[in-house]
């Protein structure tokens, strides 16, 4: 591991001032000399592997602002401070009651120990576990732009079928983010150029020609909160995760679903897919296919076909297309059968 300077800022403004740099907007946070650390479950691992090589770490756990550690729930919003730990949010009874998809996406992620460590802000920014990204002897356009992609013709069973490019097919492995993108969450971001609110759907960037640029964040910006509006569909929401083993594994396919129903008929549906895409994946085509329909198995199947219409498999991951469709069909029918 590369040696690094370790510092403990005591406020958000101090942290972003310490990370501030003139070229920050052109430098992805993952490539910056100075990086933030909270739970460290992703960053420490990637520093050990030489994938991440910061010269300086700013420890966010010493920030004083209480709101960073609070979950605030009122009649129409759930607001998570960015330093709330995954386990705390997963166990919050009001989060579960008001929006089950959020609670389940956290409960079925990682392990008890990791959930106690990992912050929500860090969780949504976790980097792919593509085997060729993790092992620095392989070419990887995400880790080393322009070096090529070893996964294309390599062992690509874990890789994405949606949102891929000729440069990168790495899967976004998070779970919480699928629920957030389905539920139209927003993120609050602070930086030296001010505070901004961003639709969660705009936080992650598809790989395109620049897979090294993973998010909309500048190197000196910090997520301070994640907010989800509570709507008619929030309580009728679900997160279904299908894995190689029943627990403690990344999704092969997952679906976050929230339904606004008028009797048997779908007033509107919100759908996101995980394990199959390069970014938290909102399946708008599937949502449109369901609108105004009676939600039976045939309608769910039609929506699933629409969700994967543009899927592009590689040699070992074609199974994710039928698996992803079945996962979505089951998630839709189970969500339909929940009490609204």
């Amino acid at each position, binding site marked *: 591991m*590369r040696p690094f*300077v370790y*510092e403990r800022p005591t406020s958000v403004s101090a942290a972003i001032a310490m990370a501030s740099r003139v070229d920050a907007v052109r430098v992805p946070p993952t490539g910056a000399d100075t990086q933030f650390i909270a739970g460290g479950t992703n960053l*420490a691992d990637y520093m050990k592997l030489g994938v991440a090589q910061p010269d*300086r770490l700013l420890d966010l756990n010493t920030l004083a602002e209480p709101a960073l550690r609070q979950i605030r729930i009122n009649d129409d919003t759930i607001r998570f401070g960015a330093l709330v730990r995954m*386990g705390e949010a997963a166990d919050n009874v009001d989060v579960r009651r008001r929006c089950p998809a959020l609670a389940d996406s956290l409960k079925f992620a990682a*392990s*008890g*120990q990791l959930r106690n460590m990992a912050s929500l802000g860090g969780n949504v920014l976790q980097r792919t576990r593509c085997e060729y990204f993790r092992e620095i002897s392989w070419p990887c356009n995400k880790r080393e732009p322009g070096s090529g992609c070893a996964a294309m013709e390599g062992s690509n069973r874990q890789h994405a079928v949606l949102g891929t490019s000729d440069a990168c097919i790495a899967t976004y492995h998070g779970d919480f983010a699928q629920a957030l993108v389905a539920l139209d969450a927003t993120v609050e971001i602070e930086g030296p150029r001010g505070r901004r609110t961003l639709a969660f759907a705009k936080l992650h960037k598809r790989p395109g020609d620049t897979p090294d640029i993973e998010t909309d964040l500048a190197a000196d910006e910090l997520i301070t909160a994640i907010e989800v509006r509570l709507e008619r569909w929030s309580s009728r929401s679900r997160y279904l995760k299908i894995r190689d083993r029943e627990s403690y594994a990344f999704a092969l396919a997952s679906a976050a679903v929230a339904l606004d129903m008028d009797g048997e008929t779908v007033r509107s549906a919100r759908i996101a897919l995980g394990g199959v895409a390069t970014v938290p994946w909102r399946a708008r085509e599937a949502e449109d296919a369901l609108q105004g329909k009676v939600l039976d198995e045939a309608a769910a199947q039609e929506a699933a076909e629409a969700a994967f219409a543009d899927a592009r498999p590689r040699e070992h991951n074609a199974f994710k297309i039928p698996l992803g469709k079945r996962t979505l069909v089951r998630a839709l029918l189970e969500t339909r059968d929940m009490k609204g």
Partner: protein
Amino acid sequence: MPDAKMSSGLSRRMFMTASVSAAAAMPLVNSPTRAAQPASAKPAEPRDLSAVSMRINKQTYNLALDNRTSLLDALRDHVGLTGTKKGCDHGQCGACTVLIDGKRVLSCLSFAVMNQGREITTVEGLASTDGELHPVQQAFVDHDAFQCGYCTPGQIMSAIGCINEGHAGSEDDIREYMSGNLCRCAAYPNIVAAIVQARDEIRRA
């Protein structure tokens, strides 16, 4: 690695040796650290040692560590508490589980320097001073909940966290919430049985 001379005149190696034998009484060494430095001092260098003070099994330890040192390596190599095991060293196996401020975490993914002022509990800190085992330790013995034993300290620490969190209500819950601790010998049925026994005993107490 060359021994970095510390300002006290101790070599790095001597300091580490001393910190093992006399850790509890060790005064905070005046080492070149960023965390303890006044603002006027020279900027920190990546290879500077950092001072970190932790309570480990109810004793205070003042250590001077390279920032790269994981909590796991600090416990094993600097403090001499080798009960906590290194399995994968990447947060995938759970062998290194300890409690920080009562919560179970993976010590391999925690930089030691990030634990300033924290209360760490390792498997060595569970039994009472007269040797009576913690209910979870006793249950693992009673149910033969291991074969080779390498994952056992992590399993025990994780089980304590799992019970304290209220996630040991059913055998299904135990399997779900203990899934971060892998056992290559597959002693899982006995581990679940041990946790059921310990849970009931802790509830009665």
